[in-house]
Each structure stands twice: as C-alpha cells, then as structure tokens.
C-alpha cells in the first residue's frame, strides 16, 4: 500500500474545502504538501450528460436520496470534485447580518464574512443576469409579487456563458456554472495542491483511482 504524507489535509472539495485549498495553496511554493480529499468523482466535461438518473447517481451522495438517521428527511447534496457547487443552482447570496448574529460564533463578524463573500462572488463571477435572459415565468412572478406589494429582488448567479440548459442541478453540461470545480480547485492544483479522489463508479465504467490525481 502506498503511503503519502501531507502537511495539510482538507476534507471535501466544495464551497468550504475548495476555497480553503486555494487560499492555502501558496504554501506549496514554500514546500508544504497539501491534499484535498474528495470521495466523489471528477468527471470530464463530456461526462456531464444532463441525464437525470445518470447524473444524480454520479454527482450526489446516495443519488440525492441521503436519508437522515430517523428517516424523516432526505438531503440532496453533491458528492463530486467541487462538492455541492457542482450541483446547486448557482444562486450566490451574501449572508444576512441577522443570520450571522444568530450563529453567534466567537471571532466571526458579519463585516468580515461579508468582505470575504464579496471576494469569492467576484472570483466566481456571481452577478445579476441581464433582463433579456430572464424567462417569462420569472417575469410574471416578479410582476405578480410587485402587484401584491411584495419586495422582490433578483439574486446573483455564478455563471459564465450560460446557454439556458436548465440542467444546473445535474452539473452544468456547458461548464457555465463557476463552482470550485471551475475556479478555486484548478488554481489550487496549479499551485501544487493535490486533489485525492477515492474509488467510484459511474455507470459501468470505473473512472476513479485509489489515490492521487495531481495537477
């Protein structure tokens, strides 16, 4: 069995792990060895087929049917290179101050988090899409809400080159969604971070290896 040692091991490659990997990656130039462990697959661009059952099995923990211990709730979360940033809709919002205050985490202030979040929103191209790309049903929804007196706002999404496939939750087949798999992890790998993928299967093809996939 091959033994490898690292100075830093980051568990998970999603919004948390992927960004931490990028932020720490300059240390690799000073000789630090950093690994990101990811249990899900790293699909090639042409493997994002957009087919629901295929992608649910490949990109979600338990195919999207992860059950809580008491069996009362399923939680759909990503399990892939890029974690849930591969399969979420791309909605990228700043944390509201009232939420951070309620968390009451020592040392964590809203101002600090807001500043960091804005940095990553810019990095991942989170922005308000232009009016021409908003579809009819959303326009109607906005119109209806306004008529009823509700405050309705657009939310930013982290996309670049979106073709309107509506397949965000199955991993964008056009590589438009800018998750950690498209932004932070490649940068981290360029700097020397190793992303270690565990063994996995997609359909009948075993496309994973037991150990390191480096830059």
């Amino acid at each position, binding site marked *: 069995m091959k033994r490898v040692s690292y100075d830093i091991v980051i568990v998970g490659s999603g919004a948390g792990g992927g960004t931490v990997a990028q932020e720490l990656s300059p240390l690799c130039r000073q000789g630090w060895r950093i690994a990101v462990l990811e249990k899900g697959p790293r699909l090639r661009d042409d493997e994002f087929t957009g087919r629901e*059952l295929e992608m649910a099995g490949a990109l979600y923990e338990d195919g999207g049917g992860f059950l809580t211990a008491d069996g009362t709730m399923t939680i759909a979360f990503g399990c892939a290179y890029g974690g849930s940033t591969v399969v979420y809709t791309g909605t990228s919002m700043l944390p509201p101050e009232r939420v951070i205050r309620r968390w009451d985490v020592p040392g964590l202030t809203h101002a600090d988090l807001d500043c960091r979040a804005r940095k990553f929103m810019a990095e991942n191209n989170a922005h308000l899409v232009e009016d021409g790309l908003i579809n009819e049903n959303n326009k109607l929804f906005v119109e209806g809400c306004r008529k009823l007196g509700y405050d309705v706002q657009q939310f930013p999404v982290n996309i670049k080159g979106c073709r309107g496939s509506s397949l965000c939750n199955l991993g964008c087949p056009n590589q438009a969604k800018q998750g950690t798999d498209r932004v932070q992890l490649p940068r981290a790998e360029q700097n020397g971070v190793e992303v270690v993928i565990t063994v996995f299967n997609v359909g009948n093809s075993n496309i994973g290896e037991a150990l390191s996939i480096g830059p």
Partner: protein
Amino acid sequence: MPLNPDLAIFRAVVSTIVPEAAALDEQGWHDLHQVVEALLRDRPESLMRQIRMFLGAIQWLPVVRYGRPFTRLHPTARTRVLAHLENDRIQKVRVGFWGLRTIVLAGYYGRPQAAQAIGYAASARGWEALP
C-alpha cells in the same frame, strides 16, 4: 426487478399515486421498473426488506376494513388507504409511505417519455433547442 415478488402490489400503488400510470403499456412499465431498479440497485438489503414488508402491509391491511386486499380495491378505496398511511400517527409508517412515494414518483417521472409529456425536456443546447 428487486420488487418482483410484489410487482402487482407495486403497480397498484403506482397507479394510485400517479393515476396516469394506469395507461402505461408493457414497455412503459418496463421503463418504469428500470428506473426503480437503478434507484434501488446499491441500496442495502435491509432497505429492500423494509420496502417489501411495507408493500405487504399495504396489500393486506385493507382486508380488515374492506374485506379484500389492496390490489382488488376500487381506485377510490386505494387512494383512501394510502392517504391513511400518509397521515398515520406513527412516524415510521409515514416515513415508509413517503419513501415508497418517492420511489414511485421517481420511477414514473424518471422516464424520458413522462418528462416530455409534462413539457420538461431539458436540453444541454438550452435556448437554442427551443422551438
């Protein structure tokens, strides 16, 4: 098909939860079973046992009230039986029903034909694919 021994019960449940399923031909049912099979393939045997037990309960519990098993009930009575399970005061029963319902809906709507029928046929080509 992992639910083979209980196929008739399963089909009756599917047709009750999704009435449109009653119009499925053999190919349609085959496709539905394929989806369910794919969903359950890697699940633990204990879960399969629970599903079979739950299907067995659905089949035989109505005998107490209606004098006949689920598969021989009128659709209205079938709906009533499932609604009772969905709202049962015992959490495990509600969870069991919810799990089964999830499998049924995934099986029916997981077929490309069903997606097309309800106007949900996403394409990687996105806006270019719109008529």
